[in-house]
């Protein structure tokens, strides 16, 4: 059993027998202060340095000797928000999100399995690729991807129709709730929505900005310009400073041109 001083276990893994150099995968028990439901500490193994092309099947196969794996969550870093989630997307529009080496949270079925994993001492390099699952890389994978992208017209239509009908239902529901809130006045308060007889402003940043702008404009229109002598004097001075500023700016440009050695014709 190899455990280093940081509490990490390490195992060597080879993808295929052909290759001589194994990858080192590090893992330890998942322990954080704020635990989430999908990754309970007593069931979860925190695994690092997983090669980017490994998928769930690979990991399941790898940890098979330790017990039954319930779920596997991939992440890019160990901060909780980077879990790679593919749910809710159309199956025709799935993009692989992984960017390089991954981190995984492996949730076992029972606590025993986790303990097995933590005391696991495999014989040197484990070889993952076997006949249990088909895992394509390289040219074959690309060919398969291409085929997938082609043969889907009818299925796609079905999926769309289904999704849209569900979506319409959802919208109707929401509208109902909205109407309901607009009509009810709880404790004398009326909720203003965009619908109805007296619609409120859209709750957008741009609308707010526009209102602020017009207020400012109005303010400006009301002020008197070039009326008092001090104002005239000031405007003259402003003109002068502007000229000077421009002059200075040009000088700066020249300086930068000088840096480029632009004044030696030959």
């Amino acid at each position, binding site marked *: 059993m190899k455990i280093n001083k940081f509490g990490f276990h390490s195992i060597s893994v080879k993808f295929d027998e052909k290759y001589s150099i194994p990858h080192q995968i590090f893992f330890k028990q998942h322990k954080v202060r704020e635990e989430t439901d999908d990754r309970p500490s007593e069931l979860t193994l925190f695994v690092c340095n997983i090669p980017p092309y490994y998928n769930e099947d690979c990991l399941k196969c790898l940890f098979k000797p330790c017990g039954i794996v319930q779920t596997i969550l991939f992440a890019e870093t160990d901060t909780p928000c980077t879990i790679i989630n593919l749910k809710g997307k159309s199956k025709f529009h799935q993009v692989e999100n992984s960017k390089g080496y991954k981190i995984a949270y492996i949730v076992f079925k029972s606590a025993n399995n986790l303990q097995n994993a933590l005391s696991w001492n495999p014989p040197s390099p484990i070889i993952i690729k076997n006949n249990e699952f088909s895992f394509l890389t390289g040219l*074959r994978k690309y060919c398969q991807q291409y085929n997938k992208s082609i043969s889907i017209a009818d299925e796609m239509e079905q999926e769309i129709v289904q999704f849209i009908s569900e979506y319409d239902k959802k919208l109707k529901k929401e509208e109902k709730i909205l109407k309901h809130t607009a009509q009810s006045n709880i404790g004398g308060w009326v909720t203003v929505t965009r619908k109805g007889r007296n619609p409120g402003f859209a709750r957008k940043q741009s609308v707010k900005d526009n209102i602020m702008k017009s207020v400012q404009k109005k303010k400006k229109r009301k002020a008197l310009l070039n009326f008092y002598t001090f104002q005239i004097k000031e405007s003259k001075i402003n003109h002068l400073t502007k000229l000077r500023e421009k002059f200075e700016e*040009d000088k700066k440009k020249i300086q930068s041109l000088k840096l480029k050695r632009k004044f030696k014709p030959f």
Partner: protein
Amino acid sequence: MENNIVISNKNRKRNNFDYVEIPIKKKRKKSDIKKVAPPTAEEMNRLRETENIFHSNLFRLQIEEMLKEIKMSERTYNKILLWIEELKEFLMNIDISFSLTKGDLINIPNVLFPIKNKSKSIETNFVFMKPKSVNVFGSFSSNCSFKRCGIIDIVVEMPKEIFHKEDYLNERYLVIRNIYLSCLASKFIDLGNDSLIHPTIEFIITNNSEKPLLRIKPNSEKLQKYNFYIHLVPESGILKETRFCPSLNNIRYGWYFETAGDGKLNSPSPYYNSVVCQDLVTLKNEELRKNVFSESPNFKDAFLLLKVWLQQRNLKEGVGAFSGFLLAMFIVYLRKMNKLNHLMSSYQIIRTVWLGLDQTNWHSEGISLVDTKNECKSDHLKIFNSNYDVVFVDVTGNVNLASILTLPKYMQIKFESKYALQCLDDPKVNSFPALFMTPVVSIQEFDHLIYFRKLSVMKKVVRDNASTEMQLDFRNNIGLQFLNIIIKMLNRALGQRVSDIAYIVNPTILSWHVNEKIPHYKNVILGLKLNSEHAYDVIDKGPMANLPEGVEFRKFWGSKSELRRFKDGSVCETVCWVKNKDTLQMKRLIIRDIINYILETKFEIKQVHYLYIADQLESIIYDNYNKIFTFCGTGEEAVLKILSSFNDLSIKIRHIKDLPFQITSIQGTSAVFRYSDPFTNLPHVHSTIKKGLNFTEKTIVFKSDIFSKHTPLYISPIEAVIQLSVSKKWPDDLDAIRRLQAAFYIKLSSNLTKICNCICYPNYNYIDILKDGYVFRIRISNNSEISALKRQINSEGLIEYCDNDESMYLEKKLVQLPILSSAIHGLHQQYPAFGPTCSISKRWLRSQLLDDYYIPDICVDLLLSHLFLNAAPYTVSYQPQTMFIRFLKLISTLNWYLETIIVNFNDKLSREEILEIESTANKNRESLTPLTIATPFDKSGTLWSQPEPSVVILRKLTQLADAALHVIELSIFNSNSVEEIKTIFRPPLKGYDIIICIIPTVNSLRWMNIDADINTFCPIKNSPEFKKLPIVDFHPVRLYIEELRKYYGEFCLFFYDFYGGDFIGVVLKPETKLVKEFKVSNMKCSQETKNKLYFNVEAMIDDFHILGSGIVERIERY
């Protein structure tokens, strides 16, 4: 009205209120005002002056900076003056006992006689005598010499006594002058090492081979970089100036041809006359010049500026050049005409000089420095004009100062002046660098170059074609005669096809040590600028056959001439050069064919005797097509075919009625629509390889069990965008929008199949349409999709729209790219060389293993657009090769970090906008991308250059371009230049840590490799029907690299040439070599030893093998 009053009252109240309540604020305001220093009179003057008498403040400052840089400092000036005093004293007291009597051979100790005179012996007696005077003259005397490689002219006056009465005749004056010069040289040599003068003493010919000068250098280290040219003039009054009137003969026929000739054969010798007479009047003109230049220092400044301008254009020196002396005299002329005055600023002076050069026509009505009161002036000038090409009469009225200026050079000067004025008048560009800072190089300047290497060819042409008058006047000046003959002939043959024929004689300045033989000029280059309106005319239409002109025409063109009937019924003599259906690439070379024909038939110059430089680099793209397809030029025709097919398709799509959304426009986005694809699709790239493919009803897919090692050849989809009208039907939810879009594709596909019987294949994100053998891939550009991606709810609970990576990507691809594509399409229509240039440039860039990832295609397109829109100091060329070389020059000299590239399509940006773009870019330089390209559609300039190219890549690019330019400059004048130039398209293998070799048959663009064997690709014939959607956009190597970049981009850089490259170069980033602490964030691809993490390169290489199974042949580590 009432309202206003109320408001002002309120204001006043508030003011009062302010005053009472917060007096501190007011006080601070006052002190603010005091900080602005009152302007001094000087400052006000300067500010006002800049507005009125200079182009702009920036221009003025630039002029000042440059003058500072090139002007000689007061200290060195004085030092040189001191040295000249010493030299003067030495020369005035020189004593040489040297004499020759009539009939002696000219033999001067230590010195070889510097001109080739007719007889080796002297025809009069000669005794050396001390010079009459020694003076400084020319630019140094007014302190307008350059600081670097400055030239100081010294004039030595030869005494009266050494001349004879009849020395005007038969080169006698020239012989004596040169013997005198040789005597001085021999004396200098005798002085040895420890003297005033550096022992390397040379003869030098700047522009007149009959009057070499003596070049000496001071023997002190500090002054050694200055060259002193010794000129000789005779003391006044030895020869009558009227003797040298242009219509008189001073070289006797009998003497020159050594046959007893009739007196009638003594034709005028204007060239010889002016050569001799110029020496007689030098000092008088110099005096006038000095007077004018001493009026105001601005004359000197302007003179210096113009000298720089001439120098940069290589017009100041060499055979037939516009010398500094001539320039100075022209300024004097303008002063005399009262076009200049001493109050003018240097900027105003140079502008007036350019205007003067543009407006006067020395070749048709010469100008004269003689006082205008002289009534017979015009008659006088007529004599000059009938004897010389270009006329500028000096102050004495006897000499044509411009006699050594040749007509082509003069026309070039006129053209350049006009162009300079245009540059100044264009407020949008900072014209200063173009006018003064950029040297003009011939291979970048001209469309076509004709390169004559052999002197023997030129001699033969002159021997066979020069008239006796010409031979008599120019004598052994072969170069001038050759140029004269050949340019006249080419002008006649090419007519309106060219706008300018210029020449360059190399080397521009001949210099040799005094005891060596006179060297020859090495080569002559003719440069042609095409006139785009007529250059590609397929036929030359001559006069009607029955007119006498018709006979002449037929005589000129010989067997090429034939009779043709035209649409208006006329029957004319014509010459036809190419067939109508020939490609544009061939049409670009019509002029070459004409010149080949003319040189061969008129002068018997075979093609092996000269080199025609115009299309050497085009062969790169031309070869690609030739490799597997039938001939189709450089691809412009293929683009046109696609465009017409696409137009047809878009009309059909617009005619579809029952679509849920209205289509507003259909626009292309592929590189094809910008004419910038190095390989344009052809309609018949159906795979001939059937193994491993499964033919279904509508498409072709891969078999899942049988596997072929040959992947089908690449077919790129031609991408386009459908713009939909704004509609409220779109939902807010992104997933819903995307599904609706997919539904739209399905609907479109079924309708389109019904209407036009083409194969459509809807997909989730696009629709593929097979039409005329092309695959068009069309996407919907939908604003609601983009805004759904942008939508966010901020901390106040308001809805905000923020850019993010995905929305930016879509916006670029679906909104910005179509706009840009149509702008660039317009640019190509204006400058037809754009497309091919772009293709060559991309081919070159990619062959350096810098692919679309590092330098996005669109950046290349934009850089080239910039080049075409801002061609200064050149004009836009019509030959792709020339433009490509300029492109290399641009990227090798561009200071990426400090300059913002502005591509001003259709002049949409105003001057103010451009200034604003520049100033904001300068202010925010740190936060911007290393390369910024601003367009009217994207003023920030960062849209297309994100995230790459990075500084590292740009630096590499600069080096590569510099190297490529070097190779081209060296090899383009060699006879097998095509092969030599191809080396710049072969990537170097050095500098990579890992090299991944690819199985060649997997590479679906394998035929584009520069060294691909033509024989391995069987030509693919048109298949009669296109009924199945072929395998589109399948490039396994690209997919592989994309995967590698995604997974290992943190650790390595991957380089690959997509156009048929057979290896991937991998560079490890320096971070991978570090030892790291054991941390979760450092664990990627590393192994642990003793609680530290090391990068595991071997394991990564194994990963490369695994991911590239079936693609990778072997991986080598260096």
